[in-house]
């Protein structure tokens, strides 16, 4: 299929956001993924998150690698620049883009093959550096476009559609992200939009390296009995630690939850995250505790979801490099070229 033109017409009474855009303004072209693919739900949630946050669509840059998940940036935010790069290398391309212009929002979309197998190194190093981005892995544990091979996030002992058992240990990207120093780490499920939407919104507001692992069942190759990434399996084993609401700007906070189960997290830019804790002992600011919690539940076969860790005062790569406030791509020869007088001095020092 080449491309299908999506009809432009829409209901005149569609709700508009603060910028006057409807959610249609955040859509992309028609998805070419399989009907029912979890990835399409994630795209829809991303559209809704950007719409609700009133983000000007062109202020987002969406980048991806190669694979089913990496195709999705074509299917949302049609007015944003997009870059479908090389398999496993989205993190480096995104890092470069972010260095060039710190003023845009960077959305990195990847998959489990793209991030946990071929691109494991780049995944790790982008998080280590604290690139200000939203890094979403649409995790289905399987290679879709090449028809059903296991990826590195497939659980040991899980069965492929052809009946082959996976003997290799799996990589938990959330555990890795926590260890590598990501300042916002969450896991969700493509089938749980109520949980996913506020997590994406909070990640966009977060001014640091935000990582979200979204389990997104592959309806074609990994939604059968014996899979640990199927809709049924994930619903049965989901252990949510909290439910999140995001309040942007300085809107007053109304709390209508039972005391003791609510935690308000204020981010650096004034955004407030309201966490309804499902596990009363869970502290969202404790990286080490998050790692322990994750491993303890993983050992019990439970998939922990929710916002697992957030640093309210994140430092990003630009902070570490002490770059100027202006976007580097706006600087001209006036700011960048030292000129002939300086060069004469350099010449003199080389004699």
């Amino acid at each position: 299929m080449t491309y299908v033109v999506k009809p432009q017409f829409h209901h005149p009474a569609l709700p508009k956001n603060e910028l006057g855009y409807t959610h249609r303004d955040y859509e992309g072209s028609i998805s070419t993924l399989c009907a029912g693919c979890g990835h399409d739900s994630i795209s829809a949630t991303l559209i809704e998150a950007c719409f609700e946050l009133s983000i000007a669509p062109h202020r987002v840059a969406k980048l991806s690698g190669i694979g089913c998940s990496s195709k999705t940036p074509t299917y949302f935010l049609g007015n944003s620049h997009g870059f479908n790069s090389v398999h496993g290398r989205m993190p480096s391309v995104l890092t470069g883009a972010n260095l060039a212009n710190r003023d845009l929002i960077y959305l990195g979309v990847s998959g489990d093959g793209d991030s946990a197998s071929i691109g494991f190194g780049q995944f790790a190093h982008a998080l280590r550096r604290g690139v200000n981005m939203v890094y979403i892995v649409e995790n289905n544990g399987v290679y879709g476009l090449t028809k059903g091979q296991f990826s590195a996030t497939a659980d040991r002992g899980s069965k492929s559609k052809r009946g082959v058992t996976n003997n290799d240990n799996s990589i938990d990207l959330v555990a890795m992200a926590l260890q590598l120093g990501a300042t916002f780490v969450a896991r969700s499920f493509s089938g749980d939009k109520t949980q996913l939407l506020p997590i994406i919104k909070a990640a966009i507001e977060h001014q640091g390296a935000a990582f979200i692992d979204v389990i997104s069942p592959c309806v074609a190759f990994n939604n059968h009995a014996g899979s640990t990434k199927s809709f049924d399996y994930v619903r049965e084993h989901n252990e949510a630690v909290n439910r999140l609401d995001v309040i942007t700007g300085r809107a007053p906070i109304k709390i209508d939850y039972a005391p003791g189960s609510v935690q308000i997290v204020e981010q650096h830019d004034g955004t407030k995250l309201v966490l309804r804790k499902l596990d009363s002992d869970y502290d969202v600011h404790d990286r080490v505790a998050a790692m322990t919690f994750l491993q303890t539940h993983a050992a019990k076969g439970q998939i922990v979801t929710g916002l697992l860790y957030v640093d309210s005062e994140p430092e990003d790569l630009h902070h570490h490099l002490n770059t100027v406030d202006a976007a580097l791509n706006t600087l001209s020869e006036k700011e960048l070229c030292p000129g002939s007088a300086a060069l004469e001095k350099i010449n003199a020092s080389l004699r």
Partner: protein
Amino acid sequence: MPIQSVNDFVVRFANVNGSGSASANEMFARAVLRMGIPVAPRNIFPSNIQGLPTWYEVRISEAGHLGARGGTDLLVAMNPQTWDKDVATIEPGGYLLYDSTKPLPASKFRDDISVIGVPLTEICNREYSEPRQRQLFKNIIYVGALSALLDIDVAAIEQLIGEQYKGKEKLLQPNIHALHLGRDWALANLTCPLGIRLKRADAVKDRIFVEGNAAAALGAVYGGATVCAWYPITPSSSLADAFTRHCARLRVDPETKKSKYAIIQAEDELASIGVVIGAAWNGARAFTATSGPGISLMQEFLGLAYFAEIPSVVFDVQRAGPSTGMPTRTQQCDVLSCAYASHGDTKHILLFPEDPAEAFEFGAQAFDLADRLQTPIFVMLDLDIGMNHRLCRPFKWDDARKYDRGKVMTAADLDAGKEFGRYLDVDSDGIPYRTYPGTHPSKGSFFTRGTSRDRYARYTEEGAPYADNMQRLLRKFETAKDLVPRPLLAQAPKPTRYGVIYYGSTSPAMDEAIDLIEARGQPVDRLRIRAFPFHSSVSSFIAEHDFVFVVEQNRDAQLRSLIVNECSIDPVRLVPILHYDGTPITARHIAGAVGDHLDKLKVRPLRKVMS
């Protein structure tokens, strides 16, 4: 008969890596330079930090020959490990300076050279008690002895020591003292000066003395690079280091103390080129510095940059390959792997600087070319010019020069109703317009991908739009031929049927060789290629000559292959002259090889044989 020569000889220092000899040897070279006499130093170093043999060769040439000459007139033998081989390199009639503290059997020497013993260890042990001092000052002491033996202006060395230890007064006096220890001992105990000696001249003029890597990095600063991503690899690391140093001095906002640049030491070369492509896609000028193995790793990304048309700059400081090859030895062996980098049909633009001055110029120009042509640009240095100090014309910059950011459509253009198609060839030069991300709320956005697309950047797997796009990329490559640096022609004094093509660091050896070849009565026209794709003058040059020698520093005659392939030349007419043992090519080698061929050709001119 000992060699007699003023201002024209080769001094070779044989040292142990990590013994602190490098700065003393460099001081020696600079002192000669301060006397107005051109020098060409070359570091011959192992892939090692401490303990293995290392050499520093200084060619002194008032005539200004800066290529490697071959042979040694004076050997400063400070490494017992390599003694026998080193002594063997001395020209008949040459000189050997050695540490005579421990007596050596006569069999260790040669009858046809002059042997000069200086008890360096003894002098050191008498003067210093700390082992580290004994080691470091030994180097300065031999420089002191050389100053007497070669008639070096001692004030010039003292001045250099003063400059080097400016602000570190504690180190200044002891170094001056050590210098005089050696000098005084030589004056008191040896016949000074030797048959080879120095005499103040005025042959340096306003030239500067700088490494190609530092010059290229400065070019990147002047050319407006703001993002650099790199991975350490010899011999290119010093380019990124120099960029870091230059930026810290020239690119920090004086008020806010913030940086107008971003440098990332990436996890590997794949990430380096990925960062460059991401930054360039987003409108910043970005580059990486690497060597052959890095180029191999970057192949997939380079194809993406070609096909998705992302301006990007790669400095390739070449070393001997394949595989790890000889990491610290020079070659011009990445010509083909860069010209055709990546899978599928790709062709890239290469620039071949001859020295640091051109490394600076091309280093800056590469960014204009990348933006204008929206494609990767390779600046092809090598270890010989990258990591050695080379005398060259001073850097120049025209303050009226504006960066050529190429065809970029702005929000105002889009609002004015200009048609935007990312891959639309509006000007028939194969170069389309692009927009930076974030330009306009509703116009001008597009999706960049390595998969095929139509002129409006819409994904397609149809044959016709794919072929249309590939043809446009070829048109763009044609356009490049007139934008890249032109070849430079130097005609022989007499008309000739023979020509020679050369490029990059071969320049000084070639310039010197031409004199030697002409002295044999064989005039040859010269064409120095400075870029790929080849300008039409390359084909005409070959057409105008019966035979053209192509001088290169690789085994497979890579540039020759590129000429045969791209200009459709009969290979018989291009005679390869190759040098690829990892040492820099010499005038003697070129003159010998070209001369021998010409002698053969004189016997049986091919035209007559064929007719």
